[in-house]
């Protein structure tokens, strides 16, 4: 056994998890410690003596380490980096505790979807210091990301954006800003961000949501602005919201995308149980029109839309996530960064991705994908060293009008499935010839992967009308054993699969299930 196998031994999963948790909490502990003053009789005279002139009332509660930290972020970093936001928040008297406690204490655990959160945590934990200095800059970067709505919005809008961080947040961009703010010399300024002027228009603003489904353009009057899906409750499981808002979301999606004839999504999977995780493969993001040439593009390496992939990530199923988020088991056993939106579509996240994110590294590679579900005949579980060669994993499929799936007839759905299978088989053939050219077709890993694709094509062409096309495609292409996936995926598989951002719908199954904050625009 290699050292790596030893380290990644599944038998010690729980031990490892605990050790990691302990390590994390060692850094976080200070932000949980509070001293309870309320019960004690404090001498008001002391407060008066120690009070600073013009001190805000909340300043006096400075014995608390977390509050101190939040104010150091607020008065230190934020004031220096973006005085506009700083002044505006001060003017509205929104103290950093109001949003910051949750952000910092949970390391942004409730502000991002799990998929995105893992990226954030990777960046945080990769830092050399053990007290997570990146947290400060992430906080500022997150504020910068929503600068526009903060500055233009009234008190309520501000709070809404702060307390329910926009679901559309481009987590990669935020991390890039944070890294840049932390060490400007090492990390170049992300494109679209300039410290002096504005900037990056958040996706909450007009762009169709890249990672998390469509968003609506905010109304010019800040008061009336409450787009469905733009916000989510931080305190409730998303599934509940998803159920509640699904109908509404589907409608809004139809409106948003009614003009679109069809969109292409590229499905990708990266499953590498035994591949050296430290050599996580760089993964190219393909424009939808170029997937036929995927191999060529991949080898060129000059595409600035490259996104790094972290392969063989933490085992998801039943191990990670909040109680209701366990369906993440359905979204894949591998993790990769969200696709970097291309500037061609006026993408809002034009950050520089050519630079490798060296901070992202693999936690554990033992998560054998549940791939054998459909291809168990060909691929015996446990001994298939699935390659992470990107080209063979690149599955492209076109999903046309998937959000209309509900309103479509059985025949229509069937033909959608059939169309998918045709598209897929075209790509399959292309892929195969290219692999042949590379003389790697005989490799068992590649063979098994190809067999898997074949299985998918076959299953798709057998498309059953009673099964919602969306859940079928997702479920089978990802080849995962899923529980209650259909409802989740239905909300997710809108034509939000933007042509230029293939794969978005697949990779962020949770992301679209954000709750529109209904109460905020409740008019009852």
């Amino acid at each position, binding site marked *: 056994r290699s050292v790596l196998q030893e380290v990644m031994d599944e038998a010690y999963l729980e031990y490892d998890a605990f050790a990691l948790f302990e390590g994390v909490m060692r850094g976080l502990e200070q932000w949980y410690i*509070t001293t309870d003053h*309320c019960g004690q009789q404090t001498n008001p005279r002391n407060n008066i003596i120690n009070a600073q002139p013009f001190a805000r009332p909340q300043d006096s509660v400075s014995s608390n380490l977390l509050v101190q930290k939040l104010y150091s972020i607020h008065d230190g970093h934020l004031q220096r980096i973006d005085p506009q936001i700083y002044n505006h928040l001060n003017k509205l008297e929104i103290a950093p505790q*109001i*949003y910051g*406690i949750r952000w910092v204490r949970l390391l942004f655990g409730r502000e991002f979807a799990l998929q995105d959160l893992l990226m954030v945590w990777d960046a945080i934990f990769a830092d050399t210091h053990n007290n997570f200095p990146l947290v400060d800059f992430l906080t500022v970067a997150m504020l910068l990301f929503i600068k526009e709505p903060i500055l233009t919005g009234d008190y309520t809008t501000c709070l809404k954006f702060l307390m329910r961080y926009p679901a559309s947040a481009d987590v990669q961009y935020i991390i890039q800003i944070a890294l840049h703010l932390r060490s400007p010399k090492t990390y170049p300024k992300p494109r679209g961000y300039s410290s002096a002027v504005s900037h990056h228009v958040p996706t909450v603003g007009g762009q169709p949501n890249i990672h998390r489904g469509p968003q609506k353009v905010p109304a010019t009057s800040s008061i009336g602005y409450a787009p469905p899906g733009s916000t989510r409750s931080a305190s409730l499981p998303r599934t509940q919201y998803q159920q509640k808002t699904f109908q509404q979301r589907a409608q809004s999606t139809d409106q948003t995308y009614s003009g679109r004839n069809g969109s292409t999504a590229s499905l990708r999977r990266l499953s590498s149980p035994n591949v050296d995780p430290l050599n996580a493969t760089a993964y190219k993001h393909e424009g939808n029109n170029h997937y036929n040439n995927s191999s060529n593009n991949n080898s060129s390496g000059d595409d600035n839309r490259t996104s790094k992939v972290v392969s063989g990530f933490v085992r998801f199923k039943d191990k990670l996530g909040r109680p209701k988020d366990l369906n993440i088991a359905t979204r894949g056993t591998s993790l990769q960064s969200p696709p970097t939106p291309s500037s061609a579509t006026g993408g809002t996240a034009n950050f520089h991705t050519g630079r490798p994110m060296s901070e992202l590294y693999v936690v554990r590679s033992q998560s054998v994908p549940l791939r054998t579900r459909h291809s168990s005949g060909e691929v015996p579980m446990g001994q298939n060293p699935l390659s992470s060669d990107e080209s063979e994993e690149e599955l492209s499929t076109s999903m046309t009008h998937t959000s209309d799936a509900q309103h479509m007839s059985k025949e229509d759905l069937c033909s959608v499935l059939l169309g998918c299978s045709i598209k897929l088989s075209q790509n399959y053939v292309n892929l195969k010839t290219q692999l042949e050219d590379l003389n790697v077709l005989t490799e068992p890993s590649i063979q098994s992967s190809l067999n898997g694709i074949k299985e998918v094509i076959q299953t798709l062409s057998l498309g059953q009308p009673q099964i919602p096309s969306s859940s079928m495609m997702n479920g089978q292409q990802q080849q995962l054993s899923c529980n209650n996936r259909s409802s989740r995926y239905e909300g997710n598989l809108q034509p939000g699969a933007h042509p230029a951002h293939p794969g978005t719908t697949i990779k962020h199954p949770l992301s679209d299930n954000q709750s529109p904050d209904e*109460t905020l625009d409740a*008019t009852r």
Partner: protein
Amino acid sequence: MAVDVTATYKVLVIGDVNVGKTCLVHRFCDERYYDTYISTVGIDFKQKIVNLDGVPIKLQIWDTAGEERFRTLTTAYYRGAQGIVLVYDVTNLDSFNHLSYWLRNIEENASPEVVKVLAGNKCEVNTHQRAVDKERGQKVILESFDIPFFEVSCRGDVNVQDTFLTLARLIRDLRQRRASLFEERERAAGVKLEEQQKAAASGSTCGSC
């Protein structure tokens, strides 16, 4: 959103951990009950526009964390609160006994005029699961504190709307009373001024005579 909101009231929901503060807020705002428990960290924020006797009023509800370790932080949130919903759990005696702690906390941190309502949550439970009887709750409330009291159930949607509407009504009444008091004073001051002017005028006429 075309409703013209005449006023916004800031309402704080406080109480021990796991008494159902978040549930109460969600039941009120979303008219939904969630059976899952996810602890609130720091503070959460929700908003609902209620129709108070034909007048739309925006309730800005701040849902606080009940954990002891968060209590210090909560004090910063009291600022500007016009109403407070104090919640305890009828199946949890401790949460009831801690009411005095919370009331002291309110006294220390909130404005003296803040309007309070007490809610005993989870009242749908059987009698043998109860730790605090309704009578007992009422008695203590009447004896110790003069604040409206409701036994509520988020699961069964009992009294939840009433609790918040009562609070909103009390806030409105207080504001109106204050406003009328202010007007009265104004008027009184105005009258005085007039009298003075008259006096001055008559004095001057006298003086001119």
